[in-house]
């Protein structure tokens, strides 16, 4: 692998981590969804680049799924849902932005230290992809725990899945079964969530998970 192909792959995977960081400080739902669309586009580019340098044509399918499904259909769908629900555009972040960013930096450091240390024998590109992927997964988790709104939790979860796709494509020659299943699971997950959102909306006119927390199942 020559320097340029490596650098481009590196750039794209690193870009994905940066976009994950951008999600951390979005305080409006529409902006968050737009950033997620950018996340999916960078993922699609990264996967397509992997397909090109690994000469693995089936990965183009994964890239196409990321581009069409995650970068276009889901963001458009979420925009619609938000409009139909008429929910507030402000995201109630449970933790302040400053401390969230600091925590994010800590998580990225952690995943770099961990993954680079345990993969000394793997191909250089694969190990960097794994380290970036773990960062994206942890940042996705961070988005999920710092938001109280159901839609932004869903977005956090999807960015987490993007990290998984990056890891799966970085692992050279990983069978197609898994990539398709990941794509499918996102589809299913989205349907499930969609159903739930509508049900929640039907009953309570709110998708704020915080409102659900009032009930603990045990009247005291």
């Amino acid at each position: 692998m020559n320097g340029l192909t490596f650098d481009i792959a590196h750039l794209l995977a690193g870009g994905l981590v940066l976009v994950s960081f951008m999600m951390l400080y979005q305080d409006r739902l529409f902006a968050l969804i737009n950033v997620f669309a950018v996340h999916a586009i960078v993922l699609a580019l990264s996967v397509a680049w992997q397909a090109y340098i690994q000469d693995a044509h089936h990965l183009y399918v994964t890239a196409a799924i990321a581009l069409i499904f995650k970068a276009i259909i889901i963001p458009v769908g979420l925009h619609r849902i938000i409009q139909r629900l008429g929910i507030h555009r402000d995201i109630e972040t449970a933790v302040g932005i400053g401390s969230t960013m600091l925590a994010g930096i800590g998580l990225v450091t952690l995943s770099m230290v961990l993954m680079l240390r345990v993969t000394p024998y793997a191909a250089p590109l694969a190990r960097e992809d794994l380290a970036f992927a773990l960062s994206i997964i942890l940042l996705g988790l961070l988005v999920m725990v710092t938001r109280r709104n159901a839609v932004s939790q869903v977005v956090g979860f999807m960015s987490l899945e993007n990290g998984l796709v990056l890891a799966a494509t970085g692992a050279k020659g990983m069978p197609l079964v898994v990539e398709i299943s990941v794509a499918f699971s996102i589809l299913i997950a989205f349907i499930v969530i969609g159903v739930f959102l509508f049900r929640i909306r039907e009953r309570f006119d709110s998708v704020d998970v915080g409102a659900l927390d009032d009930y603990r199942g045990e009247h005291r």
Partner: protein
Amino acid sequence: MTAFSLDAVAAILLIPVVAAALLAALPNYRLAAGLNVAASLLTLLAAISLFVTVRPPPGQYLLVDDLNIVFIVLNTFVGFTTSVFSASYIAHELDTGRLTAPNLRFYHAMYQIMMFGMNLAFVSNNIGLMWVAVELATLTTVLMVGIYRTHEALEAAWKYFILGSVGIALALFGTILVYMAAQPVVGEGTNAMVWTVLIEHAARFDPALLDVAFVFLLLGYGTKVGLAPLHAWLPDAHAEGPTPISAVLSGLLLNVALYAVLRFKLLLAASPEAISPGPLMITMGLTSLVFAAFMLYRRRDIKRLFAYSSIEHMGIIVFAFGMGGPLANFAGLLHMVMHSLTKSAIFFTVGHIAQIKGTQNIAEIRGLTETHPGLGWALVIGVVAIAGLPPLGIFMSEFLVVSSTFARHPLLAMPLVFGILLAFGALLLRLTGIAFGEPRGSTAPAEASYVPMYSHLALVFAAGIYLPPPLVIWFQHVANLLG
């Protein structure tokens, strides 16, 4: 013979799929409930036939070995008895209007898809396929937990969905890491995800990578096992969904995730330089046990009470498997079977009780043995069994866990015994109120199906008195396999 055995595996997978398609199209709920029972029975028969037929050689995707047969037969058996219970349960739900006919069509189809997912997870020889199957089973149960569409049911389903998805995402990352570890040794492609190939070459895998992979897998699948501190979804999902689903969640789905953990534990054990998975599992098991035992005291909802008891018992089982060695593995395996049977029997009973009383609040359920002796005594036997009193099966398996721990690590036995005793106290405390005393609440006659609960309890009782030697030999063999 080989072809026939392949057919048995195919039947275990195909019957639920076909049944799900039929059930989704069938508007009549009585017919659907009957078909559900018939399909579950056929699957059980197919699973039992695995014992007698010659096994197919492991393929790239499917595998039948001594370990998973135990799980498959248990799974299909409890799946069958639950379908019988479910038939009488849903009739009542339909009468009271909590569920409608379209709900039921959806429910029955989902039930069979869930059985398919669980069976697929057990027979899969491919760690990628296993992941997909566990995910499928999870998603179907999420949908069923939310089926009542009440405020509480939606919260429970949402929590279950979010925590379950995060868990499953971590498990996928662990799976990818295992592939990364295998790839330099086994080569690229499907083979590096085939479990039988992996275990053959595990000794040459990069141990550091395997270590990290196992941590992710344990956390990921551990979320689904309901190990503390990742258990938060479990009590809600048990309490708010339909009771047949609580029974299969506790009795079966937790086992599926446990089975996945065990498979990867074997992989790690085959690699001499990797960390030993035991201490991690022991720690998580003990934490779950002691935590759940304390939580049992504050429960006011009867289904939540037994959900926490499931966390407690999964803690004991994970602890036993973490200890390892033939005796502790034997005890863990036995405890898993006994817990599945007992806990689902308890949920069958509790389901009918909650229907009669119209509440799940423990304070409003009193004196059951007087008003509904059939249900009341079933609950007494079930709780006595689950609390670990002799002569029932769980006493025996808990005794084995405790004695093998005392023999090897007496210090670890202290928190173990403490947790078990604590849970014992809480359960008996609650039981006396529910089963005895001044009757309270509705005394309407029960239209319960007693066969599933009493057949489970009879099995647990029989196992406590006498374990047939072939079964013991079989379990010992599997325990040795588990290392």
